[in-house]
């Protein structure tokens, strides 16, 4: 029970996503009294992923978990597709090395995964209450002392804000920066059910192998973002991530229309033909990275996962779940240390920042702090996919008369100004 007898719990966790559940699991395993409050019917009910989780960075943090985890397919085929209006160019990466264990990434469905992780946390001794929305924080003398949920005051030594990208909890504690729409993207997707044999045949998969396909350019109607298809066991996750600024500031197509347009592309339509949509979901993604981050801890409070802004888009890898799991784990360790010293003030909890700084989490966010600004560059999604499409068309074309020499054909496209543009693009990319 609480250190001075006034708190009912060592920690109250707001939100049962990966960060909150990782914190609950880790703290409960160390014998702390943990209460996790989840507003959905079950953990996972409000959570959405595009589709894949990378295991390597978090494998050792949760050694018991991965063998039993309800993951979908291990990703053995990676594709990135540059879409122009009427053609597309695809690069595929696969082969023996992606078929070797341990697999680095898996497709995943959060409805299943989070529900399972919640059970594992409960098995360790965490108390999880679902259908419970946290409405406010209890703040006394500038210190967070607990939460108010359903009119009830619940007290703890530490509150962990794991309530996702909008984090009203961390916001109430004054830890977050104002919302700037250019730091956020929205992901929206369909689950399309298909027979496993059909999925395996269409995506060239052997057994439980999976494929990840990313699409940029006309896939999002030229807007900052990208389309995706991930293969699950008996369904596809098909959707896209588009910057809020790109959607709202250049209004021509509505978000759902862009998704329909993507599904109607012949390259995509044949993959989903005959499939039945089973669910349509959407989720906000904090893409601002290091520069958009607020404070990660305060007096009596820690911020984890999406709430802390731990999500990152660096082009072909778009990640968030590993950071959520790891930050939850480190928050739990910070609470353990703070409890030993009986110091839950900002300085007692500062160990959390130290643990994050030493880990892949903060190292990644510092290394890739320019990523969003580099990638949020309109020609990447309009001009360059079209240019590449035109070049391919001429390269492959056999006309009814004589074919033009290759070099003059290329020169036609790679004009001086194009060359300077590419050089500029190259210099941008060097910042990532």
């Amino acid at each position, binding site marked *: 029970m609480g250190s001075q007898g006034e708190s009912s719990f060592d920690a109250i966790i707001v939100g049962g996503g990966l960060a909150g559940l990782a914190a609950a699991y880790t703290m409960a395993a160390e014998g702390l009294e943990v209460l996790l409050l989840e*507003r*959905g*019917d*079950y953990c*996972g*009910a*409000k*959570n*959405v992923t595009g589709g894949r989780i990378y295991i390597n960075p978090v494998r050792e943090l949760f050694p018991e978990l991965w063998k039993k985890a309800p993951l979908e397919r291990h990703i053995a085929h990676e594709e990135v597709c540059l879409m122009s209006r009427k053609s597309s160019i695809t690069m595929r990466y696969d082969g023996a090395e992606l078929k070797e264990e341990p697999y680095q990434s898996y497709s995943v*469905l*959060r*409805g*299943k995964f*989070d529900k399972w992780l919640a059970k594992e946390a409960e098995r360790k001794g965490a108390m999880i209450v*679902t*259908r*419970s*929305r946290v409405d406010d924080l209890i703040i006394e003398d500038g210190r967070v002392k607990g939460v108010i*949920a*359903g009119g009830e005051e619940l007290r703890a030594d530490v509150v962990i804000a794991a309530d996702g*990208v*909008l984090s*009203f909890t961390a916001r109430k504690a004054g830890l977050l920066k104002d*919302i700037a*729409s250019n730091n*956020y993207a*929205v992901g*929206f997707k*369909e*689950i*399309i059910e298909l027979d496993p044999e059909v999925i395996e045949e269409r995506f060239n998969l052997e057994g439980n192998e999976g494929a990840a396909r990313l699409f940029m350019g006309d896939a999002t109607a030229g807007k900052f973002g990208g389309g995706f298809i991930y293969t699950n066991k008996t*369904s596809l996750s098909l959707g896209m991530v588009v910057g*809020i600024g790109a*959607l*709202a*500031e250049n*209004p*021509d*197509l*509505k*978000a*759902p229309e862009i*998704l*329909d347009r993507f*599904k*109607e592309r012949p390259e995509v*339509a044949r993959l*989903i*033909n*005959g*499939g*039945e*949509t*089973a*669910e*349509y*979901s*959407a*989720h*906000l993604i904090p893409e601002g990275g290091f520069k958009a981050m607020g404070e990660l801890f305060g007096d009596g409070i820690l911020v984890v996962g999406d709430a802390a802004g731990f999500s990152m888009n660096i082009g072909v890898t778009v990640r968030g779940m590993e950071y959520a799991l790891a930050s939850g784990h480190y928050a739990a360790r910070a609470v353990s240390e703070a409890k030993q010293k009986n110091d839950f003030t900002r300085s007692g909890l500062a160990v959390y920042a130290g643990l994050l700084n030493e880990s892949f989490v903060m190292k990644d966010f510092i290394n890739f702090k320019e990523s969003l600004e580099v990638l949020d560059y309109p020609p990447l999604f309009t001009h360059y996919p079209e240019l590449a499409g035109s070049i391919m068309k001429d390269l492959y074309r056999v006309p009814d008369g004589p074919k033009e020499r290759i070099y003059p054909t290329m020169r036609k496209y790679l004009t001086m100004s194009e060359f300077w543009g590419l050089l500029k693009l190259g210099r941008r990319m060097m910042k990532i």
Partner: protein
Amino acid sequence: MSQSIGLKGKLGLNVFKEDRVFHIKIKTGCEKDARLKRAIFACPAGLYSENDNGDVVVSSDGCLECGCCLVACGSEVLEWHYPSGGSGVQFRFG
């Protein structure tokens, strides 16, 4: 065919549990605010539209609780909370 069910049809596939009051409210007097128009294009559930008076209106059917509208328009024009515990969309796949 998955292609032909339309947005309403897609939203109809989701599990929703109605709340007593809808959790998003356009602030009184802001109905014509230009910032609200951003949500018409950004909302993945297509809940925002402009009526004949030029007012932006929001439909309560099918909200996915992403918060996209809040980020796109800002809290000066929208009152935005999560639905109460156990209400709203309940993703089975996610």
